[in-house]
């Protein structure tokens, strides 16, 4: 038996939170404005009314406090799900996340577990002001001890959220905020794939575009557009940034022999470089061109009036695919 419903990504996350709150008394939500208001994106809408102010906790306006107290609650056996209001406001909590949350299990030789989930609405294209459109995933993926995932569909969002909460490790979920209203089918009975695995979303033979989160629909559209040029593009949804499923990405790249990696974050020092290096190690002799990156520029996220020029879109992805084809081996 399966329960399949059509819903937007934000509602899929709400459903996942509700199901985990109901499944385990130890699960708690904490964050700014998540109670009566239901969060600035309404993701926690109705949950406080349903589960009470003690399980859905409106916190003081203090990001380090939200993560630091979540660590303390987790040490005591709870499973806090902390909401950070926007990507750019995670930095006041950066110390607690990287020097405490990420390291607690290891520094106590495995004696203390901190199953904290951090929900981080992230990414651009929402026409907002400064600090509301950033992509800090590389900073967290670079920190050992954290898991970092990004859903791209309602189905993924539902199951990734549930899998993150039950994981004994700290997990940061990057929720692509521009996709909160993206609708899709959610099967609440049959789990989506393992949250920490990549997935081939579209088969192809000529080149691969690998991406995650908000750019997955863009990559799918780019692949569709490429058909006009008789190019068959495979699309890999990376899904998990740490651990990185480099095997699945490399397998696809080895098959199509060309790989483009795309993300909104600046390319310099970003995940694209890491993926390029890993795929080269695994499959360089199978590739017909170097792995190419499509991403943001080495600048602070620009004012939203310019974000359309900053963010990768279908054309930038296809340009990279063209560039990949322009390489000729052995010439």
């Amino acid at each position, binding site marked *: 038996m399966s329960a399949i419903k059509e819903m937007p990504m934000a509602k899929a996350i709400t459903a996942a939170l509700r199901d985990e709150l109901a499944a385990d008394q130890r699960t708690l939500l904490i964050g700014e404005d998540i109670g009566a208001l239901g969060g600035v994106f309404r993701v926690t809408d109705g949950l406080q009314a349903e589960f009470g102010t003690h399980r859905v906790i409106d916190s003081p306006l203090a990001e380090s406090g939200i993560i630091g*107290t979540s660590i*303390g609650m987790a040490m005591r056996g709870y499973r806090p799900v902390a909401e950070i209001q926007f990507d750019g406001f995670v930095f006041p909590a950066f110390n607690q996340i990287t020097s405490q949350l990420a390291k607690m299990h290891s520094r106590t030789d495995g004696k203390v577990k901190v199953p904290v989930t951090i929900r981080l609405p992230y990414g651009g294209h929402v026409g907002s002001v400064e600090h509301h459109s950033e992509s800090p995933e590389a900073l967290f993926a670079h920190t050992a001890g954290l898991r970092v995932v990004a859903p791209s569909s309602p189905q993924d969002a539902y199951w990734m959220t549930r899998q993150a909460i039950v994981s004994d490790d700290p997990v940061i979920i990057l929720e692509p905020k521009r996709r909160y209203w993206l609708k899709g089918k959610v099967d609440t009975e049959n789990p989506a794939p393992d949250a920490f695995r990549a997935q081939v979303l579209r088969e192809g033979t000529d080149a691969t575009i690998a991406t995650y989160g908000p750019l997955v629909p863009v990559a799918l559209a780019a692949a569709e557009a490429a058909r006009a040029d008789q190019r068959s593009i495979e699309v890999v949804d990376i899904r998990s940034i740490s*651990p990185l499923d480099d095997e699945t990405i490399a397998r696809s790249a080895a098959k199509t022999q060309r790989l483009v990696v795309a993300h909104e974050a600046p390319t310099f020092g970003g995940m694209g470089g890491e993926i390029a290096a890993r795929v080269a190690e695994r499959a360089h002799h199978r590739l017909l061109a170097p792995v190419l990156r499509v991403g943001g520029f080495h600048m602070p996220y620009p004012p939203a009036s310019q974000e359309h020029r900053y963010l990768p879109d279908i054309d930038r992805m296809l340009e990279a695919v063209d560039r990949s084809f322009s390489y000729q081996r052995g010439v």
Partner: protein
Amino acid sequence: MQPIQLLAPDGKLAENEVYGPYIAKLSGEELRELYRYMAMERRLDAEATSLQRQGQLALWAPALGQEAAQVGTIAALKSSDMVFPTYREHAMALYRGIAPEELLTTFRATRHSGWDPRQHNFQVYTLVLAAQTLHAAGWAMGIQQDQRTGSIPRDRAEDEIVVACIGDGATSQGDVHESMVFASSYELPMLYFIQNNHWAISVPTRTQSRGPLVNRAQGYGFEGVRVDGNDVLASYAVATKLSAEIRAGKGPKLIESVTYRMGAHTTADDPTKYRSNEELELWEGRDPIRRYRSWLDSTGEADQAYFEQVDAESKDLASDMRKSVLALEPIDIERVFDTVYSEPHRQVEAEKAWLKDYEAGFAEETTTEAGGTR
């Protein structure tokens, strides 16, 4: 603002209507134990300092001079109260039954931590200043959660309060502010224990705060008490009174324990560069152990034989500790790989396997050379 003091530096006990009764309730045995823990810690400290000088420890942070503040406070707690220490709470750790070699693992750099926090209700040391004050608040939120939902069966919740230790320097960290906001807003069962030892490495307390640190509590809407941290009896009485009030549901409290670090900040610094001899001498005159010993002696609560017995015990502790510290086994890096995550992580496993292969390669070469087969 004069700190609460019961025992003057000359060893005379003053009458005090509020705090005196807490001392009157202590048995002779309990009074002697306070002395014993202070003396043991001082000996441990001296031994650790000498181990560091001999290159056996990477670093040591002496608590010399802060014995009364720590022992008086921890003795006032129940063993079910969770303590979140910084990195200098050696006397409190000893009191909670943590063995010297467990305490020194961090400083010998064999492991990041040496004890199981749940076994002693004493968290591991924290080196990032003030981070633990938020973990303490979260733990206290967990106590409230247990009380409301009964979701985790525990001892009676009123048997648990949380102690967050901080130094005077660390009070400037933003996390202390956020922790106090949480504690106050949710009326958490928390005791903030500030050891004002007058220095944050080379920077005096006045650079952290122009007024007494105790006054900060008021700004958050809770009570703070300033106590003479070199007076073990006052430290005990104040902590007993405040912790009882916290247990009764009156919300967070704060103690500013005015004491002095007589040693270096750590074995890595040179206090003569930033503080005067006169200052040190002044505080040596207020030595917490000498002061308490002279009172025990004058009241007949302890006799010469008792002091000699503690001396002998301290000596044993030091020599046992030297042996056990030198015998500490370093953690294997394999174990570090295995504890980065609770659950398997592809990249960690791959790197662990790579290191194994890489090192196995060397092992083969060495065997070959030694065997002389090539």
